């Protein structure tokens, strides 16, 4: 029998039991749609993380922090101070270091109030550390700022990302810091002046500038927050060589008696990458299970179909169809279910991923990260041809695997007995 005829015969058979075959197709569609949408979104997430890191970080930058990344270790009460940068600057291979003094403040800008992170930094050093992201789109980063100088991130001025601006250069901004002084709650406020508006950065930026950041001079921060303690010191090295990074990290840790952490961008990227890989694997495993369930569905339906069509199998054999052609005929039906289901699944999955993005179903997630180290992020699905192709291959392979046994049963049926079947 010609392949074309086998295909046509399969199409006519699928058309016969539309509901039942439709349900089998639906099973595959759901499985493939789940794979395509979830994998595209997780690729999107991975891409987001990668690009954000590449943008915000040069690999020769280190973060020195007192905050422990471990949940197990008891927190150290060791503190870093503003002038610890002098200690760090004396270590080999360190070209510069900048202390970052961060507090959460209430901000009033152009009639809107925010609760945001306010960062006290040395503008000059910070510019040198982040020459690509700490860049003004209007105004300029003052090299010798006065006490009221303020630089704001792009999203602070345009929270809806629609080009509207709350304030312009030279406008005032009220900064209120709530603290306790001798047990009493105390609100300290000062009026700053917007000197520069940062260019859009796009989000994640460990230790570096973010779109929702507000930057004031370090000296102003020390005075306003009434402290010399800093959470992090950013360090730039003369080389991004692995051995240089490692040696310098050790030297810095040793200089503070091992009480601080030195975080390398690579280490963070690696650990996020490994978390992402685990998530991707988990997602893939769940969706694979759903496809196997779909495969069992196909097998069930094909077995039922073969029982019902025993007589037809007898007729085909009586008319001279060879066993292997009978096998091909029934395998082809299972494959058709797989192919139709996979194609529908790819289309549905892509549509699902796009609509999750378009309808902002992940926005609660992204707004949740608005004021975290990730900054303002949006996950956009990333469609890779290889995902579509491998989904199709997987869908078809599942239907072939589960269709094989029913087809084999059909092929080895004895014509006389099959014809006698009512």
């Amino acid at each position: 029998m010609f392949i074309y005829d086998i295909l046509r015969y399969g199409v006519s058979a699928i058309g016969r039991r539309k509901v039942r075959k439709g349900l089998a197709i639906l099973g595959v569609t759901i499985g493939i749609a789940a794979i395509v949408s979830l994998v595209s979104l997780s690729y999107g997430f991975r891409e987001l993380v990668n690009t954000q890191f590449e943008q915000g970080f040069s690999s020769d930058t280190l973060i020195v922090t007192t905050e422990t990344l471990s949940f197990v270790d008891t927190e150290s009460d060791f503190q870093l101070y503003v002038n610890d940068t002098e200690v760090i600057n004396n270590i080999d291979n360190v070209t510069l270091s900048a202390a970052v003094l961060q507090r959460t403040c209430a901000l009033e800008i152009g009639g809107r109030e925010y609760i945001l992170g306010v960062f006290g930094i040395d503008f000059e050093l910070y510019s040198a550390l982040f020459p690509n992201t700490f860049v003004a789109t209007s105004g300029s980063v003052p090299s010798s700022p006065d006490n009221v100088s303020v630089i704001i991130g792009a999203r602070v001025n345009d929270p809806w990302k629609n080009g509207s601006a709350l304030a312009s250069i030279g406008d005032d901004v009220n900064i209120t810091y709530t603290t306790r002084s001798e047990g009493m709650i105390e609100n300290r406020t000062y009026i700053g002046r917007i000197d520069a508006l940062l260019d859009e950065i796009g989000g994640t930026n460990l230790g570096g500038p973010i779109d929702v950041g507000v930057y004031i001079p370090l000296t102003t921060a020390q005075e306003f927050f009434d402290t010399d303690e800093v959470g992090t010191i950013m360090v730039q090295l003369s080389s991004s060589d692995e051995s240089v990074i490692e040696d310098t990290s050790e030297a810095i840790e040793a200089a503070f008696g091992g009480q601080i952490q030195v975080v390398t961008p690579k280490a963070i990227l690696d650990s996020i990458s490994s978390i992402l890989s685990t998530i991707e694997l988990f997602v893939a495993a769940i969706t694979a299970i759903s496809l196997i369930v779909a495969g069992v569905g196909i097998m069930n339906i094909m077995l039922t179909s073969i029982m019902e069509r025993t007589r037809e199998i007898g007729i085909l054999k009586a008319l001279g169809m060879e066993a292997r052609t009978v096998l091909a005929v029934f395998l082809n039906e299972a494959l058709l279910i797989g192919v139709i289901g996979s194609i529908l699944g790819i289309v549905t999955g892509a549509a699902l991923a796009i609509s999750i993005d378009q309808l902002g179903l992940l926005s609660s997630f992204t707004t949740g990260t608005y004021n975290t180290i990730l900054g303002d992020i949006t996950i956009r699905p990333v469609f890779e041809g290889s995902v579509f192709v491998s989904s199709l291959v997987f869908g078809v392979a599942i239907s072939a695997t589960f269709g094989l046994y029913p087809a084999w049963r059909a092929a080895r049926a004895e014509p006389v007995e099959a014809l006698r079947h009512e």
Partner: protein
Amino acid sequence: MAIETVLETESLQKRYLLGNVPVDALCGVDLAVSKGEFLTVLGPSGSGKSTLLNMLAALDTPTSGTVRIAGTDVSTLSDSQRSLLRRKIGIVFQFFNLIGRLDARENVELPLSISNTPRLERKKKAEELLELVGLNDRMHHRPNELSGGERQRVALARALAPNPQYLLMDEPTGNIDSKTAKELMDLVETLNKEREVTIVMVTHDRSLAKYARRTLHLLDGKIVKEVSK
């Protein structure tokens, strides 16, 4: 002139197991069918006539004895070779055995499609055969839209599609009314006389014996009587 034997059985035995009870359907049948012959095997139900027909159609294998189709011992053939052999045999069943979702023409085309006949050729052939059996206006009707007699004529057209050397019929008139049965049998008789198609028909209907030139009476798996015109 030597008469060519196209179908032959020797001491043909077939034993079935019905549960654990052995049943002898055929107990040593010797039979020879010559080219162009019209043979009827008459017998009551349970006499083994359907089993005999299945043997002659290479659909079933004997317990002992031999079946030779066109000189080939069927028991020496592989499953695949038997399939290829069946393509040369036309068979008409009592219950039509048409494929319900295919229309009349597609049913007739089916054996041609199985034997890789090109599409246009088999379409033409199917149309010719449906015209021959008087169903040219019923080509695109499915079996459930056809009467019993029409269905059996489609089945006959299908059996004739591969230009078989012989035509086997199992109670071909069993499910159709007597008037339609007569028309069908007249057609079969014409095929035998004009196209020299060798025909073996098994039936319990004695009135059909008149069409055949030779009639064998089968009882309890044995040939008990032979009548030639």
